[in-house]
């Protein structure tokens, strides 16, 4: 039993360090998509992932990455499961993940909007929270497009240093 627990910890450690294919400065643990790693009594390692966006093409690569790393570490039976519920939120990006994003010039997300019960309100003149420029730290920034190179990012621009930057939008 002790060895199974130790084994689970080791397996988790390996799976945690698999990089995200789209933002390779982040690990799956940083991104918050690796929900659980356990070892079954028969030795099968079960890693549980949760997808970010419905259409995120990186999901298959994440799964392949976890399986490949665990196999390479000597685990013969590896199973990767998916949980859809509760849905992933950017709130699960760890403080370490946020630090790495900022370090790479990508503004980390603010708190995800709380989902009230009933219809989601449409705010046409929403006062958006301040996104600090990841390069110079200025708060005088503006959104140029809510959609960017990957599903999870928006395009912003800093009015102080004039640099464009990406921003992981809250979801």
């Amino acid at each position, binding site marked *: 039993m002790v060895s199974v627990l130790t084994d689970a910890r080791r397996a988790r450690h390996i799976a945690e360090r698999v990089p995200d294919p789209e933002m390779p400065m982040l690990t799956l643990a940083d991104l918050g998509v690796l929900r659980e790693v356990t070892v079954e009594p028969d030795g099968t390692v079960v890693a549980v992932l949760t997808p970010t966006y419905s259409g995120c093409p990186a999901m298959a690569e994440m799964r392949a990455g976890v399986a*490949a790393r665990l196999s390479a570490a000597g685990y013969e039976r590896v199973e990767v499961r998916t949980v859809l519920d509760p849905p992933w939120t950017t709130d699960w990006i760890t403080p370490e993940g946020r630090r790495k994003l900022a370090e790479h010039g990508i503004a980390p997300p603010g708190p995800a909007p709380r989902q009230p019960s009933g219809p989601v309100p*449409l705010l046409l003149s929403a006062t958006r929270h301040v996104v600090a420029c990841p390069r110079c730290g200025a708060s005088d920034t503006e959104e140029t497009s809510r959609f960017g190179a990957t599903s999870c990012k928006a395009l912003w621009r800093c009015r102080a240093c004039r640099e464009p930057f990406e921003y992981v939008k809250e979801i």
Partner: protein
Amino acid sequence: MSDDHVYLTLAEGHEDDTRWAYGTGFEDPLYGVDTAVPDGVDREGLAALCLALGDDALVSAQRLAEWTTRAPELEEEVALANIGLDLLGQARLLYARCGQVDGTGRSEDVYAYFRAPDDFRNVALAELPNGDFAFTIARLLILASWRLAHFERLTASPDPVLAAIAAKGVKELTYHRQYAAEWVVRLGDGTEESRRRMRAGLDGLVPYLGELFDAHDAKTDVLAVLRQVTEAADLPLPEVPSCQGGLGRDGAHTEHLAPLLAELQSVARAHPGATW
């Protein structure tokens, strides 16, 4: 690239079930999900619902993808493509669920690539040609609002898989609706020409709204959004026809669906099981 790059793990020798792209079973979108159907769930009704919502999403995604290289600005092209990608992801999940529930075990590819236009259950509104940017935006506002309202209710579905697909979809659709709503206001409240086109876009959709609202209490929510947005844009609220059944949901489509599907399905049908 170091071996840290996860895409490399895909390029390593793998078996038949890990190929790229369509027709390959490269990735079951519900892979590793507990897919049991709870007792007491009306499987036929659930399958029909998944199919209709999946078809709306696939056809919409295809139309949005047609804007690639044609949008007025790069940012809008990226936005429309991203929205299409979200919808494609929703379609894949819904098709996969449909195949589990209807007992056929069909894969997402069978639904997307190997059905005839008559077998599609999307609303006609989704298949209309893109028109100009204003028309596309008007349609996006209406479809995103309708789908969001519908998905909000489906988060309480007795089927846990559909409920989870809906819960994820709600987050995405909120962004889609927001994007469309802001553009309707911008165009409606813009120049004389943009205002004329925005109004024409909304008016052009009116004949197709009845089908969308039929038998769904999402109508109230959609109308509330339309009222809010047209008011902010100082546009007249289009007159919405009363509910009418049929058309796309019954497989009776406009002449526009067949060419759309012919293009979408051409490669899969010409080279079944091809890989690259």
